[in-house]
Structure formats: C-alpha cells, structure tokens
C-alpha cells in the first residue's frame, strides 16, 4: 500500500460577498498518495483552482473549514510562517499561465534561484547557479547558461512553462499541484510537458494533483480522477473505471461533449444551461439537477451524498440511476418513425 501524502477532509472554502459567505469549494474530501497522479476535472467556475489554492494556502480572505492533512500535519489553519516553510519546499505549484506566473523584471536564473534561496540560506551563490542550470537542463531547456540570463519575454510559451515547472520542482517537492499546466500550449509542446511531469513523478516519487479540463490529458496522465461540479466532487474513481463506465450525469455529459478523434460524430452533446454563479448556487439538493430538467425530481436526493458503487468508485446523488440522454432517445424515435 502506498503512502498517503495529502488528505483533505470536508474542505469548505467560502468567500464573503457583501454580508454572506458563499462556498466555492464545498465539502471536498480527497487524498493523494506518493507516486500517484490525481486529476481534478471540471469546467471553469467549478472550484477546481479554488481547491488548489486552498491546499497551497494562497487565499487571502477566504474562510477555510475542514482539514488539510499534509504528511499527518494539519495545514488548513497554520501560521503563514510555518506554511511558508512547506510551500515551495515540500509542496510545489505549477501555475496555469506562465506569462503571469513569472516576474517580467527578473532574470530567469534569479527567479528559480529565489525559490532555492528561500529554503536554503546557506547555499552559496555559485552552488545556487549550478543548481539552477541543472534544473533548467532537467526540464529540457536548451542552452541553460544563456537562458539563465534571459527575461521571461524573451522565451516562448513552452519555454516559459518549463521555467515555471523548474521553479516548482526546485526543492524537490513531495507534492506537486499543477493547475492546467498545458492549457496555454500547442499539442506537441503539451505532450513534451506531460512527459516531463511523468518523469518527475517517477524520479522524485512525488504525488501530483493535476487540474485540467482536458479529458485527453486526464486519460494520459491520471491514476485516479475526481470530477468537480459547482464546488463539489460528483464522481471519483480510478481512471480506467471512469473512462469505461462514467456514472454521474455530469461526467457522462462531459464525455459526450468532446469531439472524439477516434470516431466521427455528427453532433456534439450540449449541456443545457450554464454553470451557476456562486451566489445562485442551490444550497440544497442535487446541484446538477437544473441542467438535466428531464430527469424527474424524485430521482435526486434531498441531501446528495457520495455513494460507493464499487470499491474506490464514488458517485454523488442517486440521479445517475435514472439518467439518460434525451437527444439520443429522441433520435432513435425519429429513426423508428422514418
């Protein structure tokens, strides 16, 4: 049995809007083991980045409830000083947009060196430079000595993302959170970056949380997958089970809305309605019910919970048992008539 690295229990992250608190992350529990990739999938606004930021303690004004156990230490509400010792050292984060994650006025070498310096003050300047060059080489940057003295704007998107990754892994973190690390990149560079993250996982035995909306990336990278909708996890499973038999209506709708390169479809599935904004979230009942109005109300639970349908495969709410796509049945009917 592999070692549990991070365990999040009943995490609730709420933001204050006027005089009320609204939960962007609501009752999320998950765990990551060493040498494991947990993918978190969802659309924009589902709370996946808010979750990552909560784990890293990057929210300034949010109210955080619940436990975040990192190596058996609760980091949900520890002092910033203690957290700073962990962040960038034991926990690293790869940010989504490499252009805004880097300081435009700082040379690449100094930016990566800063991460080293903060956690190891004894490291001499020369050694630090050696280490940075090593890191740059490790993430596959050609001519690292030259790049060391360059500024972010002189590098291409893929190179910048490599620099962001180099910064994140500078202190060989045990936990790496990657927030949409390849969204801004071309496919060929994407596959290089994904290979790189896989290598790092094996080299450093790290646990990785991979946040993405690209199901192809999930299929390639993940060991386990958590699907998020409106702040909640609606389905968790190992990657093979999830791709073979997704159960929750949202997961199934998501799969059907992706143009599949393997087989040609004529029409893509469209999920009705939009992701509700924080303030308009229903506080009770199944949050996805508004977008599948053809499913009877009695199919939903009053207080939807995660049900374990098979070992390790959890689905929220009972509505999955009664769910069918309306269009396909309609089409079949039409075919039947004609």
């Amino acid at each position: 049995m592999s070692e549990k690295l991070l365990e999040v229990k009943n995490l609730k992250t709420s933001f204050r809007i006027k005089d009320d608190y609204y939960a962007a992350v609501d009752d999320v529990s998950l765990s990551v083991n060493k040498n494991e990739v947990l993918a978190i999938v969802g659309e924009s606004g589902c709370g996946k980045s808010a979750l990552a930021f909560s784990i890293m303690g990057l929210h300034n004004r949010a109210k955080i409830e619940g436990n975040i156990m990192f190596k058996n230490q609760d980091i949900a509400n520890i002092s910033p000083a203690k957290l700073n010792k962990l962040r960038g050292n034991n926990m690293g984060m790869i940010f989504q947009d490499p252009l805004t994650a880097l300081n435009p006025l700082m040379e690449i070498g100094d930016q990566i060196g800063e991460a080293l310096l903060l956690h190891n003050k004894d490291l001499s300047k020369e050694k630090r430079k050696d280490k940075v060059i090593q890191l740059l080489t490790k993430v596959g940057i050609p001519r690292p000595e030259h790049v060391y003295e360059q500024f972010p704007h002189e590098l291409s998107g893929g190179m910048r993302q490599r620099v962001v990754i180099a910064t994140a892994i500078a202190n060989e973190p045990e936990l790496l959170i990657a927030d949409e690390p390849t969204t801004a990149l071309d496919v060929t560079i994407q596959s290089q970056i994904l290979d790189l993250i896989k290598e790092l996982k094996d080299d450093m035995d790290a646990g990785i949380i991979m946040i993405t909306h690209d199901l192809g990336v999930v299929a390639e990278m993940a060991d386990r997958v958590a699907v998020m909708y409106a702040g909640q996890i609606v389905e968790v499973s190992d990657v093979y089970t999830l791709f073979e038999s997704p159960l929750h209506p949202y997961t199934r709708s998501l799969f059907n809305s992706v143009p599949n390169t393997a087989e040609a479809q004529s029409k893509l599935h469209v999920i009705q309605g939009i992701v509700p904004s924080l303030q308009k979230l229903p506080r009770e009942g199944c949050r996805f019910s508004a977008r599948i109005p053809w499913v009877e109300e009695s199919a939903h639970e009053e207080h939807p919970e995660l049900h374990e349908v098979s070992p390790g495969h959890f689905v929220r709410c009972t509505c999955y048992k009664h769910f069918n796509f309306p269009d396909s049945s309609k089409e079949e009917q039409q075919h039947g008539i004609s």
Partner: protein
Amino acid sequence: MAFLEVEDLKVHFPIKGGIFGRTVDYVRAVDGVSLSLEKGKTYGLVGESGSGKTTTGRAIIGLNKITSGKVTFDGNDISNLKSRSEVRKDVQMIFQDPYSSLNPKKRVIDIVAEPLRNFEKLSKKEEKIRVQELLELVGLSPESILKYPHEFSGGQRQRIGIARAIALKPKLIIADEPVSALDVSVQAQVLNFMQDIQQELDLTYLFIGHDLGVIKHMCDKIGIMYKGRYVEEGTTEEIFNNPQHIYTKRLVAAIPDIDPKRRQEQTQFRQEVKTEYEQSYNDYFDDEGLAYKLQPVTDTHLVALPEKG
C-alpha cells in the same frame, strides 16, 4: 474555379534596424500558401502558434497587407483594397477571444448592428428588428439587445461575435480559433451552432485552429502549416489516417488519446514518431528549417516531400 482561391500568398513583415530605421530583413509570416475552398465546405488551417495560420486568414479578409500572391473570391480578385470593397460584405470573421473582440463600452445592439450600419441603410426600427432576429438565430434572448458584453458568459459572447459576423449574410466566414477560449461544454454548443447555420445559410468556413480534435470534427479538408508554409494538405481522412510528412505525423501523434488503456501503446508510438522526426528532420526541411514544395500524392493529397536529386 473554386469559391475561394488563394495562390502563392505571401505576407512579409519588415524588420527595421540601424540608426535610420531601414528595413534590414523580413519576417516571412506567410511564405507561398495556396489553397482552394469549395462552396459550403469547411477548410481547416492547422498549425502551432507562430506558424502563420492566423496571418493567412487575416490576409484573406484584408486585415494584413498581402506582399504578393492572389486571392480570388467568387470570381473576383480581392488581393488589393480597391477590388475588395465589392465583396467586403460577403467575407466576415469570427475572432478567437470573445473577451477582447467585443467593445466593452458598447451595447449588444450597437455591436451587432455595426456591420448593418456600414452597408445597409436601415431605419432604427428595422435595425432593431434585424438585430433581434440575429440574436434569436444564435440562441440569445432578443431582450438582451440593451445589455453590455460583460453581462454574458464566454459562450454567449462568442455567439454575439457570430451574430455580428453573420449580420450581412456573408458567404465566407473566417473563424480564427473560435472555440479555443471556451470550456468543452460551451465549445460543443458553439461548434454545433456553427454547423447548423452553415446548412441554413449555405456558409463556407475557413476554420483556423490548433485543436486537432475540433478540426477533425468540423472540417472536410485540412492544410497543415509550419513556419509560414504548407507541409501537407488533404482531406480529413488522409491527414488523420495517412499522414505523410513527419511534421504531420508528429502533430497527429501528439493528440492525447481519450482511452487510458492505450496509454502504453500511445507512449511507444509517440516515441517512434519522435525518433523518426529527429532522424529525418534534415530530409524533410531545407537548411533554413523550411518545408519544400508540395507534391501531389493523390488528387487531393499534397505533401511537402523532399526534392529528389
């Protein structure tokens, strides 16, 4: 004669240098692109960032100056400004980013009616009715004409952009990565919608993109660009099932496979393609790293194969 015919299109941007700001060299953003597009079809222009695909699209519609080459649309030469005014109505563009392509200070009615105001003299009342019709056509409520762009979601904004593009009933739409900025479910909405109006209005699309899944879903014919030149052109079938150029092979191999069980195979396949790419890079590209001239493999399939001898 094809509906849209582009012959040997070149768009070069000067690089200024020296104390007098003289032109020292050119960036060859588009360097000899030819394509032809049949009416009612969708042509996909694929390439990585910086390959010149957007510049090609912008040059066709006239947003970038053409250095040399000829663009013929529906029998009219539209390579220069003068002759273009005739067909300006018929060619429209959908932009990539729905957040920056709509003026935040304008109401929806002013955004969508702008092309109408330029080309058709309508009374205020007629204009309002037309805009409402257009909004209904793209699936937005006609009451939203007085709203501002920030009041809409990303998918809805992109629909406003589409409503503006189809306001003058164009014949050709150049769609520059119309769904790149959108979530998958919203992406599905916009793609379905684009297919619907294509049938309804008999539209022809030049679809620019880098997401090969989307391109495969939408297009009949595909051109792959690399550093301003074509490396391969063919039907969707030919490009995906029988890619000939190593660059295309690599691009196709890089698409993430949606089946996690094939992970191992995929990794191995990608490794093979990568090795092949590295080994034969010098055969497929010239000294400057540019592709050679296209040579026909079949009637529809053109590949920039190395010149023999």
